[in-house]
């Protein structure tokens, strides 16, 4: 009778161990963090959308960093942070020369969920090109 009790207990322990092992493995499969890829797409899309809005509204063309930052904050979702860098070039005596650099937003955070994109725009002065501008943005989850 006493032996039967041991066998029963051992059997229960082994089955619980097997079940927990299976459930644990299943849990790792379910909680796989590949969902971050989807977040990258959303962040990239947000970054491009914001850059496009800033260009289309003439905000980037103002080259006013505080105005640009204010505009970014007014459209950027609260759980994101965005850094923008604009490098400006001008035609000086037939050559393109870097004439300005502007950065807006916090320093880029080393985060797993971070992405990066580029854009360009041109500003005009009368019937001439004033500057050719290269935009880089980094966007990440807070």
């Amino acid at each position, binding site marked *: 009778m006493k032996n039967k009790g041991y066998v029963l207990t051992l059997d229960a322990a082994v089955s619980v161990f097997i079940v927990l092992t299976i459930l644990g493995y299943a849990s790792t499969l379910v909680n796989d963090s590949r969902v971050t890829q989807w977040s990258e797409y959303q962040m990239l899309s947000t970054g491009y959308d914001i850059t496009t809005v800033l260009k289309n509204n003439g905000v980037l063309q103002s080259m006013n960093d505080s105005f640009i930052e204010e505009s970014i904050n007014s459209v950027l979702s609260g759980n994101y942070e965005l850094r923008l860098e604009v490098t400006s070039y001008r035609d000086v005596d037939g050559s*393109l020369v870097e004439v300005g650099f502007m950065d807006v937003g916090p320093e880029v955070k080393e985060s797993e969920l971070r992405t990066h994109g580029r854009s360009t*725009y041109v500003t005009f002065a009368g019937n*001439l090109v004033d500057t050719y501008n*290269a935009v880089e943005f980094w966007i990440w989850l807070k």
Partner: protein
Amino acid sequence: MKKGVVFTLGLSLLALTVLSLSITLSSSRDGMESLVYDLVAMERVYNNYQSAASDLRDLVLELSGIEVTVNNNNVLFTEQLPNPQGAIFTNAVNKYYTFSLNNTVDTQLSLNELKTILPLVIESQNVTYKHNSFGGNQIQVRQNSGGVQNYTIIIEADENITNCTYDFPAGNNTLGVTLQLTGNPGNCNDVNYADLAIENNIFINEGAIEITVLAGGDLTIENNFADSIEVTTRIYLIEDYDTVNGVYLPYGLVESSLESYGMVKGGEVQVA
């Protein structure tokens, strides 16, 4: 004892069910992961393309000196001939090409045609308004599928207009050509119909301004005066409003690609 076996088997079956569901979910995520990678790549390619296309549109609208208006069944192009913005535009396009080469590695530009003849395409009729050489003395309209029913050419010239000669031989005269020329002093106002089988001409001041409707219906306007004249070319289209999509830069000026994904985005850039 029996109860214990049933309990163990039941629990194991439940766990195996959970495991199989998890494996199914995980493998479906593999598919989604690949899809999301593609979406990220497409987003980059699309935005790189849009950025360059928007810049080229801005360059044309701000610097070309050509005003484009799209109406219900006609499109107007107004510019000085020769266009004083020709050299400025060409230089700006050259600089933009260099700028793009240095800053947007995934965007390929093919701007030779844009800077030399500045073609503007009316879609969907596929009628092209262009120049023999942008900044030169000739405007050309090329219709590839007979989409034009009438040209109205409005010219303002600070010149003494002494004579206008119309050479529209009789035949199957179907293509309307209206001229409204205001000189200083003198003017010419007339409506003629061109036979598309042969060449038709208007000569102003013995060819100082020459308007030619070529066989097939293509149009050429040439200014041989020393000074610029203002030319408005109104092109009436055969198709109705629903099919006039707008005015575009030709296909192939901008391409954005991600070679590792085998993705390429090209298209026409709409300017009006």
